């Protein structure tokens, strides 16, 4: 029963990835019109157009182009960037670890903070502390990421002068220097991601708290603290794992903004540069990496919530 559901989710994940690749391909290769026309511009003659199409295989039907594109993607041949002519895989290779490292650090910092704060707020509902956390997190999720980054720059870089506002990574700094330079982008992302996670953790615990067996525990006089830690938390773990995976997925959009503001040499910055110069092969590759990661994380969230549900683990 459970195995079947997990496999089913994985199947849905693969189908989603497939549909995503179709959407990306459609939007970047078919909908903009004739690529040969765009590349060669006004001065193109019918002969040069035909030659360009033949050279790049554009004269083949769309579905053939799609499958050859998909095959190239799957085997790691991501094509050549329009700007500079470097292979896209080499461009991505030099950037992707920066992004992975930053996302990993953010997850490492924000997950414990959010679960603790969420629990804390759920333990004292209706108090000033809870209201403060609720209002603070609501405000944080209501504003754009760049707002938080701008305020942090204003406070920590301009007024207090503690941290640099742009990072000029030289590659030769000690890890302490490196951490100081990275502090501001990390802080921005931690704030953005934590706010979501705190809200969802709090809501998850409060949701469990309204179930009958908790009422029973309250009626038999178990202290509130013990109820939350012994009774509610166990049943909220599933939703919380779900929340964590979902929020790591939200990191994807946070990273785009933060890497641009602080000019961090990550994958997202590469993609934005690609969008600005309309370097479509580069955008395709980056989009597939980001969307693939996103779909994968959502899939993990889905499977985690199935695995943590005892009713599915021990079918009758």
């Amino acid at each position, binding site marked *: 029963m459970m195995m079947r559901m997990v496999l089913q989710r994985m199947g849905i994940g693969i189908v989603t990835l497939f549909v995503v690749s179709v959407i990306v391909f459609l*939007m970047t290769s078919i909908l903009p019109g004739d690529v040969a026309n765009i590349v060669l511009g006004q001065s193109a003659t019918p002969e040069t157009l035909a030659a360009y199409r033949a050279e790049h295989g554009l004269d083949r039907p769309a579905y053939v182009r799609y499958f050859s594109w998909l095959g190239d993607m799957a085997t790691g041949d991501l094509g050549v960037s329009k700007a500079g002519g470097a292979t896209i895989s080499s461009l991505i290779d030099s950037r992707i670890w920066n992004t992975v490292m930053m996302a990993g650090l953010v997850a490492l910092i924000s997950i414990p903070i959010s679960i603790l704060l969420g629990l804390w707020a759920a333990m004292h509902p209706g108090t000033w502390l809870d209201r403060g956390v609720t209002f603070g997190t*609501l*405000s944080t999720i209501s504003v754009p990421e760049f707002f938080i980054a701008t305020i942090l720059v204003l406070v920590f870089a301009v007024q207090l002068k503690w941290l640099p506002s742009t990072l000029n990574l030289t590659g030769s700094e000690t890890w302490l220097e490196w951490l100081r330079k990275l502090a501001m982008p990390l802080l921005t992302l931690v704030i953005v991601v934590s706010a979501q996670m705190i809200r969802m953790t709090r809501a998850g615990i409060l949701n469990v708290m309204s179930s009958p067996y908790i009422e029973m525990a309250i009626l038999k006089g178990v202290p509130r603290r013990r109820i939350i830690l012994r009774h509610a938390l166990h049943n909220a773990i599933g939703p919380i794992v779900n929340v964590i995976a979902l929020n790591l997925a939200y990191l994807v*959009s946070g990273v785009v*903004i933060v890497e641009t503001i602080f000019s961090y040499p990550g994958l997202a910055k590469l993609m934005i540069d690609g969008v*600005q110069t309309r370097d479509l092969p580069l955008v395709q590759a980056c989009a597939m990496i980001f969307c693939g990661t996103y779909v994968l994380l959502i899939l993990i969230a889905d499977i985690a919530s199935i695995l943590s549900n005892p009713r599915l683990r021990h079918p009758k």
Partner: protein
Amino acid sequence: MTEQIVTPSPTQNAAAAQPKQEEDVLAKLDDFAELPDAAPKRKLRLSWVGKLASLVVAFWMVLVVIGPWLAPHHEMDMDGDDSFMVAHSNEYGTFHLGTDYLGRDTLSRVMYGARNTIGIALLSTFLAYLLGITLGILAAVKGGWIDMGISRVNDAILALPAIMLGLIAIAAFGSSIPILIATAGIIYATSVFRIARALGQDIMVQDFVEAAHARGEGIWYIIKSEVLPNAAMPLATDFGLRLVFVVLFISSLSFLGLGVQPPASDWGSMVRENLAGLSGGIDLEGNTVISYAAIWPALAIASFTIAINLIVDDISARSGGSLAQKMI
């Protein structure tokens, strides 16, 4: 057959005869207007936070309509004394919030920006609703293959981060205001579709809809008088949330330099343009100070989006469910 029956109006007669008593009876009769069949009367009571937030939203909405006429300067006039200058005045007028990176009046640009930022977001949200509700109700009513097809495509779009789709669309089509509106409209139509479809399916099987069917009411009457009044409140709060998402989406794209293009004033691009001023403003004596030209548009976005979220939170807290959480 020209016989005419002239009867005095009964209420007039009665009211003339026994005014006081009759009024009481009429007042009692009014209570029966609240029969299960009658359209539900919604009373919106907001807490003081909600009222304050509504004032903020109303303030920006007024600026969306008349901002350009109220602004002391034109959004593109570079008539300040210098770029990133603190508040000052010269022969062209007063610059209450100082000037931006090209020496334009920050206050005027924030006022013009309301129209671009909120206006585009509103248009996109309307488009998202038009698409989402039409397709959602179509899917709920028709079911079968139509439902399956629309739902699968919808799920795939929903499974992607909005900003990624936005970036792909702009890479493919370039950035212009119609492209922005269409992109945001389509991306956010997916969540509206899900809600509209679920609500439609939910309400169509309710007893009061069946009762209306049994009474012999037509489909339009049912949609107008039974389905819409019950779907209106959840949809209205969802509209607020969706509007916030669209504002964030569009201003993030503008901030990246991929949304509303300069020299048009848009809050997201204004933050980006003026970031350098945070450490490079000048005061009247020419000393280097902080220029808040990037902070004002950022605060404008924040005040608008936070205010809408507070109202939505307030409404859903009062209507008994944590609607906001369910829909995010």
